[in-house]
């Protein structure tokens, strides 16, 4: 049973169908949002395998709790609430944190042009930068990390971050400030 092309149905209709237990509608909603959910989880936990598991689990929980879903509200915003709680709980496991600290494989160069140019010295430099940034992000408190990831990697506006995280815009800005200050300390101290 493969989902039909995602573009044909509007989201509210899909959510209504999913509320009625329609697995196909659920599949379409998953296909629409899986990339974004995966990357959100990746930003929060820093591990690709765990990001896949956690984002899938978030969808599964959303399906099980579908009767609570309001078709007139954003499905992703609701899903994100489930996802962020899963990721926060996951990270509180000390062993998980230790594992995540092991590498920076979850980060890539933002400049796509660098990927196509075989320059070992430059690649070493880039890898070192990724390592330092990854370590600095890993050390952030989870709420600051969340806001930082939504801003820096998803490129959301403050208002959108506030809606997703369920916090006032002022809190978004103060958490972002705190995160960047910590990052500045970490990156400068790492030289």
């Amino acid at each position, binding site marked *: 049973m493969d*989902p039909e092309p995602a573009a044909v149905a509007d989201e509210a209709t899909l959510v209504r169908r999913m509320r009625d237990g329609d*697995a196909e509608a*659920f*599949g379409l909603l*998953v*296909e629409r949002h*899986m*990339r974004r959910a*995966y*990357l959100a989880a*990746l*930003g929060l936990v820093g591990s*690709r395998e765990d990001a*896949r598991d956690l984002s*899938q*689990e978030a*969808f*599964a*929980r959303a*399906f*099980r709790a579908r009767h609570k879903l309001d078709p007139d509200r954003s499905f992703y915003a609701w899903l994100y609430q489930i996802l962020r709680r899963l990721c*926060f709980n996951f990270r509180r496991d000390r062993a998980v944190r230790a594992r995540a600290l092991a590498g920076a*494989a*979850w*980060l*890539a*160069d*933002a*400049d796509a042009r660098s990927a196509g140019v075989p320059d070992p010295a430059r690649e070493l430099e*880039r890898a070192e*930068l*990724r390592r330092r*940034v*990854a370590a600095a992000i890993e050390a952030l408190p989870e*709420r600051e990390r969340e806001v930082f*990831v939504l*801003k*820096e*990697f998803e490129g959301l*506006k*403050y208002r959108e971050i*506030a*809606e997703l*995280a*369920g*916090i*006032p815009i*002022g*809190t978004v*800005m*103060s958490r*972002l*400030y705190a995160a*960047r*200050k910590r*990052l*500045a300390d970490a*990156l400068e101290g790492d030289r």
Partner: protein
Amino acid sequence: MSTLEPADRERAQALLMAAIDDELGPDERRELDALVAGDAGLGAELARLRRVKEVTSMVTLRAPSEEVWDGYWKGAYRRAERGLGWLLVGAGALVLGVWGLWHLLWNLFESLWADTDTPLPVRLAVVALVLGGLVLVFSVVRERLFTRKHDPYDREVIR
């Protein structure tokens, strides 16, 4: 180091973020310029945070290979099904477990209590065991409820 008062400092930090993220309106831009003009520390902090932004803008989240999406939604659906299965198994096991434990304890309690030959220390031990169990259950339940009620993360609201 900035010399601003705490309230002004908080406002300045918000303006610094908005400036770095290009979310500053014209009025806010003037407000920030005035603050920076009156506080050299703030200007230095703005430059420092801009450098951080430059560095972090050089990396992004690594996109997964396309194979990751093969069967992704089916995996999520299977998880939902299995979750329901585990929930039912867990609920059934819990009810049966509680029922069995209750019968076990009740039979033990009755046999010890009804037997007139049971020494007083054993009777007292039975009472202590039951009371201790109740106190522990009450304590755990109260802790859970108290912790949840006072969890600062659960109090986040949109103004």
